[in-house]
């Protein structure tokens, strides 16, 4: 609670009994706002009347920097946006530029990219589950989730030397060949992960307090989701079966069978179930992928100096948080004229005010957790 008593008192006469419209600040330094987000809550006693998000504390001007970097130089910046799911940011950007160059990554590179992106999706969902459960009070899931995530980060480290901001992909394919034993590691992780998911399910899914805290909290109907532009697990939990991996397949997703989990009434509990199911599906994709990684080159015929023809493209992928879009305008030089990024967290955050109304203060924390926002991506 970053605010001080003075500005809180001046805004309204908040004697406890006659507490009418009370504006209270949450953040920017707050344990459960997942980064530097300030939420101004309009409270009537205990009920929340509205929430206004104040963002920009983590704005680094990534899009402006892009205009003064070549396409390859900008790639590492992309990882710093959604630092929890850096690999899928990289995939989105590389595929967008390849589309601009209308080049194509070789099949081997596409399959390895798919495996790493799915592993990153599991890792990102694990971070979400750990912090979301911690905000609602369950202390233990956090450590179980981070124990599994550690395995994934080990695989990334073996593959490209970095754990968090990996910069694993290059425009046109991959930089590093899959180290020998890559398939074995991924397979061992997937085999082990199935038993681990059961740990979380035992701890939370059937837990009546967990259901009490999440059922009917932060409800978003399908129409409201679409109107707000919410995407990813938020959209699917409200019953809309829309996943870019199936709708507009990219990388090597069209080669694998996996279901898209869909929720019923769009509350926090459904979003929890959708994300848990997504983790299981990602695990299946990885298992199918490592059975047959095609041989061949890992880098397409894309020259050292990339000078794409003047023009513009928009390419979007299904990041763990939602639809991550890249709109790149090139003016024929080696540096993009404009790179506009459509981050899922920023758009999903707009739904906060709508979901919070009529709930108690304690639910605001659960709702921010279920939005699964990362401020690096919101502020760019």
């Amino acid at each position, binding site marked *: 609670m970053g605010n001080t008593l003075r500005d809180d008192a001046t805004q309204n006469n908040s*004697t*406890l*009994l006659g507490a009418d419209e009370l504006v209270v600040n949450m953040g920017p330094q707050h344990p459960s706002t997942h980064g530097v987000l300030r939420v101004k809550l309009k409270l009537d*006693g205990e009920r929340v009347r509205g929430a206004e998000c104040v963002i920009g504390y983590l704005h680094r001007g990534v899009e402006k920097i892009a205009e003064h970097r070549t396409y390859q130089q900008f790639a590492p910046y992309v990882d710093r946006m959604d630092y929890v799911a850096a690999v899928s940011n990289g995939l989105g950007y590389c595929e967008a530029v390849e589309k601009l160059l209308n080049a194509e990554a070789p099949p081997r590179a596409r399959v390895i990219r798919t495996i790493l992106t799915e592993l990153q999706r599991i890792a990102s969902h694990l971070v979400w589950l750990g912090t979301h459960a911690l905000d609602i009070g369950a202390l233990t899931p956090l450590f179980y989730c981070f124990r599994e995530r550690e395995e994934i980060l080990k695989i990334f480290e073996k593959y490209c030397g970095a754990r968090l901001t990996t910069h694993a992909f290059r425009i046109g394919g991959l930089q590093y060949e899959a180290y020998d034993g890559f398939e074995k590691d991924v397979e061992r992780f997937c085999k082990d992960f199935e038993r681990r998911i059961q740990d979380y399910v035992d701890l939370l899914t059937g837990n009546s307090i967990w259901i009490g805290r999440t059922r009917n909290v932060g409800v978003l109907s399908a129409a409201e989701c679409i109107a707000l532009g919410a995407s990813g697990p938020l959209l699917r939990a409200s019953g809309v079966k829309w996943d870019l991996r199936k709708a507009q397949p990219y990388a090597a997703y069209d080669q694998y069978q996996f279901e898209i989990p869909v929720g019923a009434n769009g509350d926090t509990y459904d979003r929890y179930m959708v994300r848990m199911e997504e983790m299981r599906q990602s695990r299946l994709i990885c298992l199918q992928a490592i059975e047959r990684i095609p041989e061949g080159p890992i880098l397409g015929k894309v020259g050292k100096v990339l000078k794409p023809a003047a023009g513009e493209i928009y390419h979007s992928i299904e990041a763990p948080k939602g639809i991550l879009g890249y709109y790149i305008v090139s003016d024929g030089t080696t540096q993009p004229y404009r790179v506009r990024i459509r981050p899922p967290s920023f758009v999903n955050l707009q739904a906060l005010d709508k979901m919070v109304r009529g709930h108690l203060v304690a639910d605001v924390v659960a709702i921010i957790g279920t939005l699964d926002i990362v401020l690096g991506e919101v502020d760019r």
Partner: protein
Amino acid sequence: MLDSVIFYFFAGVAVLSAALMVTRRNAVHSAVLLATALLATAGIFLQLRAEFLFIAQIILYVGGIMVLFIFVIMLVRLDVALHQIRFRFQKWVALAVALALGGEITAVLLLARRLPGQGLLIQAPASADKLPPNSEELARSLFSSYLLPFEISSVLLLVAMVGAVVMAKKRTDDQ
């Protein structure tokens, strides 16, 4: 010897904290002082071998009513620095009245002993160890000879609860 030590100690604490309570400017301070006065009277009950009342006093008075008082003081957000004048001309009148009353009662107490036949027939009270177990005795008489007042006071409490809740409830409907 031990009895009188205990009695004077508790009596002193009770009177002192009561006097302080009445004169304190800060309402929470007077609430705490009242709590000490009540605890001191509980001590006197103990000295009079009335253990059940000792514990009832602690649970009901200090644990219950004082919590209620402090709750209301906090809810009412009594501005602590309410520097209004505490006493007004009433103070002297009240003091005079109290002293007169005190003098009169002490006179009655002192004279009663000397007038033949009017004094209280006081034999020596039963010594401590031959007393029957207090709570059993209390319960036996509470639920036998005093059962009707017991039921009436339960109704009284019910009415008081309903009344207090209705009055203190935030009027969300007609506001």
